[in-house]
């Protein structure tokens, strides 16, 4: 008898032809994961393996694929660089993975109008290099730019390098081309001008949609004239003293391109890895961008605000900037690492630092804190903890850390960030019941058959169709946290 995977594969081969679809077990397995790794136990609840993987090359092909999927009730999972830690790009009940990384052409760099139009599967690094070669720059991009795709970042609604000055994934979009769950291809914005006036802002519906509303195939983004650039690094005795400087900085008239930080533990891990020259302290990294006079002025402001801290050399500051995509070098020490993320208001940065360190201590973790300041009002903490997934209990406990961290976000007046498969149940808490209902309605009306990345965002569902109950996962996490508390300290 010919199986589901085979039927889908044959259909896909008809649509895309020439070897751009695969369904052998080897391929299905290597596409059954992304950066977020689930404890193996979850294999029982989900079917992470796609039935078929397709490399589309045009919106029309995707439209045909989507129409087939909607007729046959097959899940579509758009996948970019698969670099997101929340398992957003993996199936929960099989289906078709669209590997979007082959739609990676830059279609137009229009310097006169300061816009770039690109296919959505290009990596941010490739895009900014191409834009830079023409004398312009991209406002902001995720620090995972070497692998993260344009459409992937938009779908996670992230913040990243450059966000302090140029905003997050949604802030530089002029227009998108999206294949909707019914196969229609929509253009969401206005290529040359900003979105304002009558009409829903369709651009923004797709920001943070986690692939649940459609497949982004093209994006027109704002670009900026390239100017002078200067990275600066300041070393503080600890994160709490660094926090004071961040408070001052966010209330000053300096507007750096980027502000990020890492604590003493992070650099301790780097030394443990053999980077003997890693500093002893907590580092505030700031990138300034603009005309020379402005940069000089802002550097003066920074020097005043960070008084008492050690200002690092030009070389070291440049090194820190060059390392901006390598925040997780220490993972090797685990060799597994669990990453968390929580947004808090700048005004409560100090409290959050205390809470995270307390959590780390209570759970006896080998952990470090890194983070960013995406705008004047928000700080995002990205702590990571080193563990060993081969040790079953230790690794199960890991989810407890992520759950509790999300809790800290809420407690300190903020929130967790991406949800993906891990935290889908948190959506209601994150936005409130009415907003959640509205999002749910939006999803149902655009995707009535629930074929677009099912199980993510608006409902966590297991392969047996049971909803992933909002209570069970957090409960499990609390239990794990308890277990971890009883175990000996990680070495």
């Amino acid at each position: 008898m010919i199986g589901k995977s085979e039927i889908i594969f044959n259909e896909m081969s008809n649509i895309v032809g020439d070897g751009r679809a695969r369904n052998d077990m080897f391929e299905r397995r290597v596409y059954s994961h992304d950066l977020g790794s689930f404890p193996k136990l979850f294999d029982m609840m989900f079917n992470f393996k796609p039935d078929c993987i397709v490399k589309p090359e045009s919106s029309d092909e995707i439209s045909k694929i989507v129409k087939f999927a909607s007729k046959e009730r097959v899940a579509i999972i758009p996948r970019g660089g698969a670099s997101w830690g929340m398992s957003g790009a993996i199936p929960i009940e099989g289906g078709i993975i669209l590997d979007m990384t082959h739609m990676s052409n830059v279609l137009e760099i229009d310097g006169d109008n300061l816009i770039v139009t690109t296919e959505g599967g290009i990596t941010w690094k490739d895009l900014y290099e191409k834009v830079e070669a023409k004398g312009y720059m991209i406002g902001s991009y995720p620090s995972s730019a070497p692998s993260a795709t344009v459409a992937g970042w938009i779908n996670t609604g992230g913040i990243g390098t450059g966000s302090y000055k140029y905003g997050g994934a949604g802030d530089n979009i002029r227009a998108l081309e999206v294949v909707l769950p019914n196969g229609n291809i929509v253009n969401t914005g206005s290529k040359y001008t900003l979105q304002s006036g009558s009409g829903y802002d369709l651009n923004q519906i797709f920001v943070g949609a986690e692939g649940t509303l459609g497949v982004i195939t093209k994006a027109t983004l704002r670009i900026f004239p390239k100017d002078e650039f200067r990275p600066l690094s300041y070393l503080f005795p600890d994160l709490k003293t660094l926090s004071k400087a961040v408070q001052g900085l966010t209330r000053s008239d300096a507007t750096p391109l980027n502000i990020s930080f890492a604590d003493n533990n992070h650099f301790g891990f780097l030394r443990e890895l053999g980077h003997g020259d890693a500093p002893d302290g907590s580092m505030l990294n700031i990138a300034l961008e603009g005309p020379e006079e402005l940069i000089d002025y802002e550097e003066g402001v920074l020097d005043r605000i960070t008084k008492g801290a050690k200002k690092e050399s030009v070389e070291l500051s440049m090194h820190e900037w060059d390392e901006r995509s390598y925040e997780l070098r220490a993972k090797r020490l685990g060799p597994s690492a669990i990453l968390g993320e929580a947004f808090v208001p700048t005004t409560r940065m100090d409290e959050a630092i205390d809470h995270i360190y307390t959590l780390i201590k209570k759970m006896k973790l080998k952990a470090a804190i890194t983070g960013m300041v995406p705008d004047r009002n928000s700080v995002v903490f990205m702590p990571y903890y080193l563990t060993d997934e081969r040790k079953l209990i230790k690794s199960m406990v890991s989810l407890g850390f992520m759950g509790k961290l999300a809790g800290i976000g809420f407690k300190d007046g903020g929130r967790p960030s991406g949800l993906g498969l891990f935290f889908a149940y948190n959506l209601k808490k994150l936005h409130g019941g009415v907003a959640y209902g509205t999002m749910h309605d939006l999803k149902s009306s655009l995707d009535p058959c629930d074929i677009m990345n099912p199980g993510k965002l608006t409902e966590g569902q297991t392969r047996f169709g049971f909803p992933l109950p909002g209570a069970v996962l957090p409960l499990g996490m609390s239990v794990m946290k308890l277990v971890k508390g009883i175990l000996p300290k990680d070495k």
Partner: protein
Amino acid sequence: MGYDVPNIEDLYACLSCGYCNSVCPTYGQVGWESRTPRGVIYYLKQLSQKNVFDTILRRGVKLDSQSAERLRECVFMCTSCGMCEEVCHVDIEFIEFWEDIKEWVIKTVGKTESQKKMYDRIKEFKNPFGEPAETRGAWLPEDIKLSETPEVIFFGGCTESYRMQKLAQASVKIMDKAGVELNILGEKEWCCGSPLLRLGQGDIVKSEFMAHNIKMVEETGAKTVVTACAGCFNTIKNDYPKVLGKLDIEVLHLSEYTKRLLDSGALKVNNPISQKVTYHDPCHLGRHAKVFEAPRDVINSLGAELVEMRRHGAEACCCGSGAGVKAAYKDMALDIGVGRVEEAVETGAELIISPCPFCVLNLNQAAEKAGLKIKTVDLVQIALGAL
């Protein structure tokens, strides 16, 4: 229990960030996650794992014949270029990593027919072409005086000895011009072992070939080995000591030696070249052996105007032909080469210079395939004309 896969710590350390995917030249051609360092690592990690639950649930990854075939294909498509090592988030030393994995795949899945043939030929004839040992030194020009008490042994290597004799000839002519006391090993020279080491079949290289070649050099009394082949150079310089311990002889690539001869005044540039040229770093010489400056210094001394490609030095893209890929996946090797030649054309250079016979051959064939006029020449040829 799961499979006994090597480099377990690396498999677990991998973050799955995917930085390696975007630089991998073979992924650039194949375009499937199965042909990425991240994908292979994930698969191998799954193979290595099997816990109690898997046994109870009869899950876990089994290497059925189709998957085994695909695994072997994906692993052996790797050119061992080392570009993934350059960008890896958790510092996996991929050049060695891939050798271990290839060896394990051969042990677990078996050799392909052509891998087996290559192994047998090298074992029997001491070269991958199955040529007789007696003709190994036949390329030597008659007018080159060999020294009974040489300072330098020129190691020809299989490709230059049997297939690209002009390069070997140019190499000794350059040294002869400088009055170097020189000799070759001739029929006593065996394959350096690179083709077997890079393909995970290095056992006889480690047990016989390395010691043999070094012994032959030592018997001549020479203190220096010079070779114009990037592959031989990297193998003798970096792989031999791993097995034999620190060598008592100095191993130099001809580009380094030529620079030395130019610096000391033993060589003079008589007919400077005035072309605009670009330089392609061979993986074995650049990323693997960290020789980036010497060949560039030589090119500058020759008078040429050197312009760099977008990716150069440690980031230089592979020509596409390494680790037996040219033989096993010819089209893919050429297509990678086409990308590299196009990058060279973008610089506006009239000529590509590279000090590796494999790069030279593949880039020229790639240019032909793509209908591009630019030629690639070996550094020794262009140097000989100018000196």
